[in-house]
């Protein structure tokens, strides 16, 4: 999604893009079958 560049603001470049947010969100998580509390 392109946006007009704002006047230089150092922090703006550190904001994650939409793509980066999607990438960080792992779609598969493994947990041990023994990894839930309340089991003998």
């Amino acid at each position, binding site marked *: 999604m392109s946006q007009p560049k704002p006047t230089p603001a150092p922090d703006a470049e550190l904001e994650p893009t939409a793509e980066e947010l999607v990438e960080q969100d792992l779609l598969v*998580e493994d947990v041990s*079958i*023994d*990894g*839930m*509390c*309340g*089991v*003998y």
Partner: protein
Amino acid sequence: MRLVEEFELGLDAPICITWELTYACNLACVHCLSSSGRRDPRELTTAEAKGVIEELERMQIFYVNIGGGEPTVRKDFWELLDHAAEHHVGVKFSTNGSRIDAAAAARLAASDYVDVQVSIDGATAAVNDAVRGPGSFDTAIGALERLAAAGFEKPKISVVVTRQNAGQLDDFKAIADRFGAQLRITRLRPSGRGADVWDELHPTPDQQRSLYMWLLEHGEEVLTGDSFFHLSAYGEALPGLNLCGAGRVVCLIDPVGDVYACPFAIHDEFLAGNVREPRGFEGVWRDSDLFTELRRPQSGGACASCGHYDACRGGCMAAKFFTGLPLDGPDPECALGHGEGLLAARGADRAIPAPAVDHSRVRPPARVCDENPLAEYLAAGAPVRSGAGA
């Protein structure tokens, strides 16, 4: 929404459950979470148990942790294991090892669908037998030897951490390594007979912190049943979901078909229903008042203002309940010491709920008191008794 937040709202079926097959047991461990010993005459029949297995299959519950009492004392134990395998329900069973003879070991080694967990609570006979009874260490080690000889791969060794064995963690690891087993160490809860001995047996704050450090170091190879999520307040969370799964992703089916939020919460307060009801286990799981209540977003109560609540979730409700603490406050073993403070402040005024269900063969009086020690044993109900502190 984070995965943990999804789970706290509950799923349409548990991910896995604990199923205590019988209250009968040949041992009389002092801290038994289910106060086992005598068989209950109302135990589920073989046909009823098979029906439960088929219901678990329909609900796609992948894994069942079978325990008791000592599950292998049921005459239909092997038949039920086979039935589970035929119906796509994976099984792990916990045992003291007394019925794992060479034939049983061979049978288990020949199947790929059953996991075996042998219980010990000391890395030496002296420490173990003080809790589990004379000869119990040798029995457990014997079972592990027979499993190894039969070629059974990767049994589990399950330990409840106590004040007496907290210094033996490396030794437990060595025992596990010796048998090619996976070590599992779990939290002592003041549940069942555990309520009687909790004051003397639960780890000290120093031991608890050392335990946490040890788990950080060994977390990859050692299982915990996610039972130390209350220790997340020390810092980095340990592997596991780190939440109370009771009534949300796990629950207990007891030998008479009663459904409790978890095996450490055997008390009317946490009883959701019974599998013998027309709605069956699935109906109890989905519609019971108790589970509906547990799945509502929890506020955190007195813990909400603590910066660590997100990590520790206020700890274990069974630990709070059976030490007479309010459920909306700190865990008795709160990493920050808030539980200790509360226990001390409330002292002898704390009313400690007795377990609703007690199949102990002999229930010794926990401490000197002027009550008839057989009073609870004979009573129909579940009297609340005042507990003195340590």
